[in-house]
């Protein structure tokens, strides 16, 4: 089950690039977690590009965007360069899917993350979450409204 609003967000430390780790608990701003199935699939590309296009609107509220999938750092880095994404893509690669499982958004049969969004407040409580059908890009409107509701 996807973690619901009111739950404390499980902490994690994941690589965003070879040798460069991101730890949730060291971020002191609101956070938007964007779980997605895989780099390079067309829907995911659009989904992340929309968040990139909306970057300014999220930045106005000091919200940090973090993409998460089970792809490894080298794959992420090629994808990120190609799509010119400016927010980190975290590799939930080893142990595979551990963070996705902690948030209740891992598809055991497929071995990939669900298409799911979480908005965390400054203290990293989940204030909003959304699970989308895997083939449908949810857009950034729900997450943006949830971030705006924090301030």
């Amino acid at each position, binding site marked *: 089950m996807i973690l619901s609003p009111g739950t404390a967000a499980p902490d994690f430390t994941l690589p965003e690039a070879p040798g460069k780790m991101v730890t949730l608990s060291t971020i002191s701003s609101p956070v938007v977690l964007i779980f997605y199935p895989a780099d390079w699939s067309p829907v995911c590309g659009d989904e992340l590009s929309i968040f990139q*296009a909306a970057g300014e609107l999220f930045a106005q509220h000091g919200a940090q965007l973090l993409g998460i999938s089970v792809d490894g750092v080298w794959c992420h880095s090629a994808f990120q360069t190609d799509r010119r994404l400016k927010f980190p893509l975290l590799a939930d690669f080893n142990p595979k899917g551990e963070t996705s499982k902690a948030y209740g958004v891992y598809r055991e049969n497929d071995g990939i993350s669900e298409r799911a969004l979480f908005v965390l407040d400054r203290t990293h409580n989940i204030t909003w979450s959304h699970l989308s059908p895997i083939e449908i890009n949810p857009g950034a*409107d729900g997450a943006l409204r949830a971030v705006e509701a924090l301030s």
Partner: protein
Amino acid sequence: MSQSETHLSSPVSSDDHAVGPENAPLTVVEYGDYQCPYCGQAFPIVQALQRDFGDSLRFVFRNLPLADMHPHAEQAAEMAEAVGLQGRFWEMHDLLYENQRELGARALLSYADRAGANVEEVVAAIKGGEPRSRVQHDLESAIRSGANGTPTFFVNGERYDGSWAYEPFAEYLTSMLES
């Protein structure tokens, strides 16, 4: 599956670029990017839908430039808006999609000229900032409406998540007409 619960956050108004009767039973809003190849593929499909649905369809175009991925998209969008201030928006819109592979600054000015706009006025309008604020306004309305890629279509205010290939899209529009 093609129906979603995502609504257009800003309704179509007289500020929009629209073709077709205001009281048409179908209003299709496209959020598009001039440098996006999928929008380029959608362009002739939209034209075919406009032709085949005639006065039953009003088509509206709004800007959703994915500027980080498409370096010319924002400038092309601003140029179309600037040309639009002289009443030549659709001429420019069509030229941009017909010439997607060449959207550099010099090419954009030549399309503005071909669209029938006064190029000096276009340049002045862009410096003045109105085209930019129109593009930003569209982009924000796209995000708030749940646009989920380029192109994103809204039919009568609801996001259309089905295929925009001609047949399924036309079939969906026909079903909306009949309902």
